[in-house]
């Protein structure tokens, strides 16, 4: 049985997930993973489904397109590849949380992620809120990052702190365990 990745994007409203999953059910697809979020008024969802033999991926796309276009939703479907990408070795890394607060300006995410990428660290989750203005509490980026054990962590921290200072951002870099220890039983 092959798998497909389906991405849905459009204005949020009640019934989006019901509409998507009804079509998937009608096409005998089995949902394996779902993640969805709402940013401001936009819904975005990503589904990984197992598709039955004989169901062409273009046909599946057609059913989704027909059912979801009336809701102003965009649909993207692709086969889940078995090809190995460059990948990331989670076992040889440690999870950290990088948080920045500071005045909003263009290019903040690009500036920080350029450094993270340069050191081969992998962003596993990013939450960012930019309400504009100079109140640091209104402009926050939270990156969950897997940092490889074999890189020069001191140099990474140094570069991040240097860039943060340049951008007038307060930056914190902490192992994820501290947040779990404090907040979870």
């Amino acid at each position, binding site marked *: 049985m092959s798998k497909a990745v389906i991405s849905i994007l459009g204005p949020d409203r009640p019934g989006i997930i019901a509409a998507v999953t009804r079509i998937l059910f009608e096409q005998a697809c089995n949902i394996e993973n779902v993640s969805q979020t709402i940013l401001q008024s936009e819904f975005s969802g990503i589904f990984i489904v197992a598709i039955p033999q004989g169901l062409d991926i273009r046909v599946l796309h057609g059913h989704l397109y027909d059912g979801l276009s009336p809701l102003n939703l965009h649909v993207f479907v692709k086969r889940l590849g078995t090809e190995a990408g460059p990948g990331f070795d989670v076992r040889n890394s440690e999870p950290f*949380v990088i948080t920045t607060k500071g005045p909003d300006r263009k290019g903040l995410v690009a500036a920080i992620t350029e450094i993270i990428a340069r050191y081969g660290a992998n962003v596993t989750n990013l939450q960012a809120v930019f309400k504009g203005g100079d109140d640091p509490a209104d402009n*926050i980026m*939270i990156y969950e990052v897997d940092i490889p054990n074999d890189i020069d962590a001191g140099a990474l921290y140094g570069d991040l702190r240097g860039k943060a200072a340049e951008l007038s951002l307060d930056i914190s*870099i902490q*192992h994820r365990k501290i*947040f779990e*220890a404090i*907040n979870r039983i």
Partner: protein
Amino acid sequence: MLTDREILSTLEMLQNEHLDVRTVTLGINLLDCASHDLNRLKDNIYNKISTLAGSLVSVCERVGEKYGIPVVNKRISVSPIAVVAGPFSSSQMIAIAHTLNKAAEDVGVDFIGGFTALVEKGIAKSDRALIDAIPEALAETERVCASVNVASTRAGINMDAVYLMGRKIKRAASLSAKRDGIACAKLCVFANIPQDIPFMAGAYLGIGEADAVINVGVSGPGVVKKAVERALEANPHMDLGRISELIKRTAYKVTRVGELIGREVADQLDIRFGVADLSLAPTPNVGDSVGEIFQSLGLLSIGVPGTTAALALINDAVKKGGAFASSHVGGLSGSFVPVSEDLNISQAAADGHLTIEKLEAITSVCSVGLDMVAIPGDTSDDTIAAIIADEMAIGVINKKTTATRLIPVPGKKAGDSAYFGGLLGQSVIMPVNNARGTNAFIRLGGRIPAPIQSLTN
């Protein structure tokens, strides 16, 4: 996936509410250093401390950096020197204090505790030599801390030792007169001393402990205060049962930090993790004060009527939350009320809201006791000993730890200011009842018997 709320509330505690690990204290057993030769003993002590604690500071800093939690103090506690240095005289004990000081200096810790004698039932020759050495040892060194356990619930109160300590405190003050008697700030007199305190000046490593152990002192009065303020702002009619629950949850969070850091430091040093000491320990900074919590709870100041009840609530909630957060809890585990080390408490004393008698009363519901209390320099030996005796009685009868850290400030009188500097802070000198008088009761000496353990009213 962590929620943004979890991350931001944690950062708030760290950045604005002074959440930190107050101390990581490496306990080192020195019993295998024993020798009849003083130089050999000193060499053994120095070598053992240097070997075990050589990387303590750097490891604490590395772990602190990893989690973004500062480890404010790195310290060492050792086996009671009165036991380690059994055969030696008072002057030789002073030489050992210098060795401890040198070792502490060389490994980069600010205090080393364990210049200690345990005399609750009787004073052995080596105990007497150590107690006699305390004034010089503390006045001539910067980092050595001393403690003497003069009472316990099982043994009663050794009044000979209590009286002796009254005299030694006065002498220690006079030897450090130029610095307002600072030697006394490094000396605690205890009832029921725990074997695993990480906090100074009372830290020592008990005889029943392992060769080396990491004990952690957590803190966080600022975190508790902010939590109470936020809750009362959101709901001004929140009752005390719910406030207790809130403090309990907050203490849980604070303790988890200490437990995590302590275990990681212990792992990296390949030393066993001992205990987390769940104490609210203030520093002389605004927002890092135990006294401010009382005001957040609606009291005019620490010391006014209602203080004992409020402290009972705070202390109990801290213990409940902390005990759930850590698998091994020990040390003092309670709220500290050190007068000079807490700006707000010091101010309460200056404003006349807080007296020595009220401090003594609140000791019945919290640790530790009359802590960092500056008193007139001409307070008599008898009266100092009598204050100690009263404090010990509270501990012995209530089966808890109590202690005194009294500083008779040479040449100064009640209402004057004493300045100790750094974490030791500054304070008004508190008036003492019958300060210069004699006390025939104290001079009777002997041992007040251990209390009955039934008929508990």
